[in-house]
């Protein structure tokens, strides 16, 4: 038989080809409805009142002024909030949450920005005006820990978050060349374009809850809310059609969603809450600050003999979040003696959560800076040092890699960058007032995959329909699902409708961890094949377009079936049999391959920085990257992920820092003017090469996902370039003007 289902693996027609976003028109014309823009009949607006202290007790709330203001309907707070069920928090059960403490649960204040009330009014402006009139009185307490970076406290060791092989301490002690360095990274904000938003509506006399949420995981949010409200999952729907990014802070439920749903139930009207930017930054998630110590041992030839990576990250007082910095370290380099450990320290600020390449991006900054330090100690080229320690097998598991081309990434990017023109002597490359620095680092991210279900319809009107309860967070999932359907049916892309982001659809995965592509497409493919089987059965059946033929003799071609002589479209086949459609259901999950291979993407970034020491100015001039992500399903959107990661890496390296006041742990730069991210003018020239080695061991489409890897390795490449320019080793991020001046 055919055919297309095989050609998708080897000679794809649509997959892997530049494909404009199928939702692009909706976004450009404003028809794509983001949660904050949605309207429901009779809808009210909620505005949270944030705590202005970070540690203490809420003594009283004066609400009379606010309640008497125009349009105000209700104010929810600890004294009148509904009793709910305790929040679940399980990855295994699909109901993990971002903050396990429910809103208004007690009168204790654990962080600045914690909600102390929710004002509900007829308009947004009325709710905000009244929220500003709520007077909260606190008993402030001393002893708030504003940041991991401001304390010597060690935090609690996390069993199970570390790994060990060989005898790294002994190997380090006996090493010919060593590096022993400590690194600090400031807490960062996700600063996703679209703020957290919830629109909650109860229907059927309060029996059913419909929640629109800007969410990276509608099923997780549904499952968590069902348990909090004590209602069946079937009576709760979570919808998230368009998401203005999330970078990880929309993976799981936050307290604002619970407060919104309670308000909607109490008032019997739909309620919408869109967090203002300030509250999105104080209480809507952050990348925790980290402190890491790396010890490397090597022989004179540069062969690593010991890697010891000890990390501490922050969590809040109301939730345990572990940002495991060392998770990539055991797999990164060939080395017999490796250990990692992870500690977590509770601090008085908003709960941290996964942020693009969580844990690993921080860990790779430390590891890849340490590798540069080792190269300097050895007098060895940093690219050569990495090639020398390239791991042919995954040293953590001993398994072969499914597909690994780090060596090619290193050599290809070095060649395109012009690494051979680098004079290794510190400060030797100059251009007018500027010193030029060249630096590089490797990057990596694990290639995961989850179970997934999907449904596909072939319709009599000639359209095709695919549905999966995953989300498109702006990365292009709608389009790659359509590409997969087009690939396997030969139908035109314009005839394919894709529905995502609803819990009423077949269960789909989180949009996170760079797993969605490899998870969703195989399930869609299975559903397509099921639908194709169904339409063949129709075609060969009584009165069918190919009545009496053998179904196996029919090939799929151009949105129809052919027996080699005659091509009949799906629409005609369905019409001939008076059917509206055929349905296909599919599911896919990782299998035995996970015990036979290790799955991980690798790549390399090369960075040119320019420092003007006369005015203490450092700018990233260009970045040349080669990344191996398997097959890029849609190359422009895949490339865009890497380019965006690089720009984000410039922010991490040079600019971004949540500033918590050391005296009281209040966040003082919770706005986009004072929390500094790169502007267009800061974006370097970027040259990204995506190697094209489909990883068919990972899934039949050969893609490994691309959301995170581009960010990893950028900050250390910048720091290493600054070392090359200045001779000063920067181990703390961001590398600020004051740090440059201090050298």
């Amino acid at each position, binding site marked *: 038989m055919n055919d297309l289902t095989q050609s998708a693996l080897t000679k794809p027609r649509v997959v892997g080809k530049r494909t404009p976003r199928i939702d692009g028109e909706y976004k450009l014309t404003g028809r794509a409805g983001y949660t904050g823009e949605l309207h429901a009949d009779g809808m009210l607006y909620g505005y949270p009142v944030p705590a202005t202290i970070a540690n203490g007790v809420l003594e009283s709330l004066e609400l009379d002024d606010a309640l008497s203001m125009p349009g105000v309907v209700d104010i929810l707070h600890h004294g009148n909030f509904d009793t709910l069920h305790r929040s679940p928090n399980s990855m295994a059960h699909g109901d993990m949450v971002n903050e396990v403490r429910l809103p208004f649960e007690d009168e204790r204040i654990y962080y600045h920005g914690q909600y102390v009330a929710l004002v509900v009014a007829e308009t947004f402006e009325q709710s905000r005006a009244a929220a500003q009139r709520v007077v909260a009185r606190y008993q402030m307490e001393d002893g708030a820990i504003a940041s991991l970076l401001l304390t010597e406290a060690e935090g609690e060791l996390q069993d199970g978050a570390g790994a060990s092989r060989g005898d790294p301490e002994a190997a380090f002690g006996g090493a010919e060349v060593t590096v022993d360095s400590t690194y600090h990274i400031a807490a960062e904000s996700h600063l996703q374009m679209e703020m957290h938003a919830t629109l909650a509506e109860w229907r059927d006399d309060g029996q059913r809850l419909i929640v629109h949420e800007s969410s990276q995981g509608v099923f997780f949010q549904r499952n968590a809310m069902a348990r909090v409200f004590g209602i069946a999952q079937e009576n709760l729907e979570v919808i998230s059609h368009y998401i203005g990014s999330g970078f990880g802070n929309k993976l799981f439920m936050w307290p604002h969603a619970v407060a919104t749903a309670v308000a909607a139930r109490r008032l019997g009207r739909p309620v919408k809450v869109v967090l203002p930017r300030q509250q999105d930054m104080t209480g809507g998630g952050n990348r925790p600050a980290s402190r890491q110590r790396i010890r490397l041992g090597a022989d004179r030839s540069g062969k690593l003999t010991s890697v010891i990576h000890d990390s501490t990250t922050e969590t809040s007082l109301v939730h345990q979040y572990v940002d495991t910095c060392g998770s990539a370290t055991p797999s990164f380099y060939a080395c017999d003696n490796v250990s990692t450990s992870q500690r977590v320290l509770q601090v008085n600020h908003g709960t941290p959560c996964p942020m693009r390449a969580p844990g690993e991006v921080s860990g790779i900054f430390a590891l890849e800076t340490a590798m540069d330090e080792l190269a300097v100690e050895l007098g060895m080229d940093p690219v050569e040092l990495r090639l020398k320690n390239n791991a042919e097998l995954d040293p953590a598991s001993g398994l072969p890699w499914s597909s690994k081309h780090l060596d090619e990434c290193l050599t290809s990017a070095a060649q395109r960058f012009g690494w051979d023109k680098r004079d290794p002597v510190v400060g030797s490359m100059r251009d007018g007032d500027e010193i030029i620095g060249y630096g590089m680092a490797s990057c990596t991210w694990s290639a995961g995959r989850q179970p997934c279900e999907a449904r596909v319809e072939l319709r009599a009107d000639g359209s095709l329909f695919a549905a999966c309860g995953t989300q498109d967070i702006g990365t292009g999932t709608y389009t790659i699902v359509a590409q997969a359907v087009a690939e396997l049916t030969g139908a035109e892309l314009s005839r394919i409708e894709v529905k995502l982001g609803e819990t009423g659809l077949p269960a789909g995965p989180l949009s996170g961890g760079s797993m969605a592509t490899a998870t969703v497409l195989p399930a869609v493919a299975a559903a397509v094949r099921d639908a194709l089987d169904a339409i063949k059965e129709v075609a060969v059946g009584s009165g069918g377009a190919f009545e009496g033929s053998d179904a196996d003799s029919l090939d799929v071609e151009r949105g129809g079936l052919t027996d080699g002589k005659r091509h009949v479209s799906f629409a005609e086949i369905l019409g001939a049999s008076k059917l509206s459609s055929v349905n296909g259901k599919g599911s896919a999950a990782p299998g035995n391959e996970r015990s036979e291979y290790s799955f991980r993407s690798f790549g390399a970034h090369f960075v040119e920085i320019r420092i003007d020491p006369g005015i203490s100015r450092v700018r990233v001039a260009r970045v040349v990257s080669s990344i191996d992500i398997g097959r890029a399903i849609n190359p422009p959107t895949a490339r865009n992920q890497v380019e965006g990661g690089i720009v984000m890496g410039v922010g991490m390296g040079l600019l971004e820092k949540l500033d918590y006041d050391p*005296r009281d742990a209040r966040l003082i*730069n919770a706005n986009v*003017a004072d929390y500094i991210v790169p502007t267009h003018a*800061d974006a370097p020239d970027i040259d990204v090469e995506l190697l094209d080695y489909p990883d068919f061991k990972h899934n039949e489409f050969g893609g490994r996902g691309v959301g995170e890897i581009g960010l990893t390795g950028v900050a250390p490449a910048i720091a290493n370039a600054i070392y090359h320019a200045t001779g000063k080793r920067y181990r703390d991020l961001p590398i600020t003007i004051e740090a440059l001046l201090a050298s």
Partner: protein
Amino acid sequence: MRTFAYSRADSVEHAAHRTTPDAAFVAGGTTLLDLVKLDVLRPSELVDINALPLKSVEWLDDGRLKIGALVTNTDLAHHPEIKQHYPVLSQALLAGASTQLRNMATTAGNVMQRTRCPYYRDPAAACNRREPGSGCDARHGLNRLNAVLGGSEACIAVHPSDMCVAIAAIGATMTLSGPDGEREVAFEDFHRLPGDTPHIEHDLGDGELITAITLDAPLVPAGSYYLKLRDRASYEFALASTAAQLSLDGEMIGEARVALGGVGTKPWRCPEAEAALVGQPAEKATFERAADIALRDATPLEHNAFKIPLARQAIIRALREATRLARQTGEQEGQA
């Protein structure tokens, strides 16, 4: 946001008479509306002055240039007379904010813009400028952005404008119109040092409206340069900036003007540094000496000490660039 009355003024006299003490004029609104939404400013009445005929730029007979209060930052930055005769002002305007903000912001509004001190912008923090007598959370807080020049025990807030730094270097006169008629104030006297009364930011009486800023006659032949140093390349307030103008007399400096931004509680003109430049060779040692003099009284706090060496670098580089441009101008005129 609290409710407020809104009216539109159709004449300068009208505007001046209609206002109550806690009324505010609104032009571009780029600072005012932001701070009203943050509950920092709470005007009872907004008087919209956008319809007033204050949008012209014209030369006066005495060689000065008069700029209407409502000329937008964008129009001013790209105005041919400004670009030709006051390039430092054009550069400073274009170094500030973003295109969208400059399209809305006006000349007088820029003069009136409020500090970016984070504690001023947070109603829950102690701030003598926002709430007299409440204290200053910045002094012992995260004061990276705060002033090293002109601060007091009560306030160390930086005046955030770039435009005003260039105007301070050029020299200018403000025209104010109020219930008692029109008066003029030297630009350098308009903004006040915080002292014990940081909430009184400028010399503007109740109901008084800025109607024009008149720039001193341009220095000729001269080179000028605005250098703004900040963390990122665009859309950020200055950590340290310098507006420098100078004329050359052979290898020697004729006249010189230096003003600083990002470091002072008001647009910071440096007359002593200027005096130290005049008649001296236009070379690095001279610039360094002038920078040291300009920053002689700078007082560091816990997190902003770096601003002193950074401002020093800004002064030296801006003077070097102004000298280079003055030489170019001189050469071109020599050729002509």
